[in-house]
């Protein structure tokens, strides 16, 4: 079968090309991956409000993702943890999430003297946890006008590796799915980046994720 099939033009970025695009976007704009309440917004980090809790005040924290690596159907990532599976038209992403918490107050051992003050003592060393994350989802297209549109990515499920107990894993998976989905929604690739500017694409079909490509079909504007 021809590349263009029943339409007149075809654009098919390979998963390797999309990973290069992810690399370029997240390297230029790392603040899309890094969120923290303890530093102001810059090119590197997006400031988020701290968690506010009575009697504690502001609880500072951070969430940092590594550049996600995408894999288009069929699965060639090697090691996708069950129960995740890659269905037709889907892509998977693999990343690591680093959770940072600035804990307040001293941590006491059993034989240490008792706590005598209600004034929390700020922690100078954050607690850091790194988790491996797998997700699956599908690309989403937005068309503004004939020849003008973009592709972004949505997650439907996330799986963490080696978190116990199961309830904690479910809680963190929900949280990280929401956060990582939000990260990926901010990556919007215009049509002309998916065909290296060969033509102005009036999208009529796609993206169809198959054969390790995200395939788009249409006609020239």
């Amino acid at each position, binding site marked *: 079968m021809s590349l263009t099939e029943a339409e007149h033009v*075809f654009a098919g970025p*390979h998963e390797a090309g999309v990973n290069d695009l992810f690399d*370029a976007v997240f390297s230029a704009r790392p603040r899309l991956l890094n969120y923290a309440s303890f530093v102001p917004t810059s090119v590197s980090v997006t400031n988020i409000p701290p968690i506010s809790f009575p009697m504690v005040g502001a609880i500072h924290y951070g969430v940092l993702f590594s550049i996600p690596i995408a894999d288009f159907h069929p699965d060639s990532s090697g090691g996708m943890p069950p129960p995740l599976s890659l269905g037709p038209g889907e892509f998977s992403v693999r990343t690591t999430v680093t959770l940072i918490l600035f804990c307040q107050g001293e941590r006491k051992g059993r034989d240490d003297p008792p706590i005598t003050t209600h004034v929390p003592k700020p922690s100078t060393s954050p607690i850091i946890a790194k988790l491996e994350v797998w997700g699956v989802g599908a690309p989403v297209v937005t068309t503004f006008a004939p020849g003008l549109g973009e592709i972004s990515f949505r997650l439907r499920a996330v799986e963490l590796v080696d978190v116990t107990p199961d309830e904690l894993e479910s809680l963190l998976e929900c949280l990280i799915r929401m956060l990582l989905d939000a990260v990926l929604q901010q990556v919007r690739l215009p049509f002309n980046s998916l065909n*290296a500017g060969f033509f102005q694409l009036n999208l009529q079909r796609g993206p169809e994720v198959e054969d390790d490509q995200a395939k788009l079909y249409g006609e020239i504007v």
Partner: protein
Amino acid sequence: MSDITAAVDEVAASTLLANAQSLLGTQSVSDSGSLGPFNASWGASAFFSGGSIDLVPPDIVRITDCDLNYSLNLTVSFDLSSIIPDFCLPRVCIPTPFGRLCTPRICIDWPSVSIPISFSDVVRFTADFRFNVFLNSSSQWQVDAVIVGIPFLQLTPAATAILAAIGLAAAAILAPIPFIGPLLAGAVLLITATIGVAALTGWLGALLTPFVSGLSFTVYKQPQLFPVLPAAGPFDPAVNINLDNVAVAVDGSGGEDELVLTVDISA
């Protein structure tokens, strides 16, 4: 597999061609020399339009019935004495009140003349084009469809029309010249016969062929540092990718001939 694969079929390729023809715009040339035995100066401008595409694997684009639209201004100059033989009014003798008197023989000096004409026409041709992919001096990847050889241009009808136009223009230019009246028709015939359709066809071919020989249409041109996203504020700089390699081919293996562009990219 390449990082990005993009393809167009013959229908879309025709649109690409039309866009490329528009980008090429109008080209002009001017020069002077000889046309037959006469001096001539000319200016011509031309642009391309139309044509249907046939993609021929592995690397040929055949454009059928492409129109070369041209306009030309031609001025033919010569000494009329080289066309019309020496002509002298004979002595005229008549009886007058002062006796029979005679005027002398008066030889007529024919002037030099310049005959300007303007002419526009379309000549249709078919040609094969082969792709040339290169990084140009502005660090842009460029894919040109370059004509293979020199197509045949049927110019005899145009040359015939131009010759007729020269005749008409010559008649208008020469008519006011004193003493030429009875010689005018013969002079015009001599001018057009001296130039001749064959010489004019050859001249027209030499004028128009450079427009088509070496003709190339740019079907792709993008900077090597390709912009993906523009800057969106002080914390969101522009996002670019490197186009590391570009290749183009005509592929018919899928049952339909397509022009396929493959690109390798890196962050």
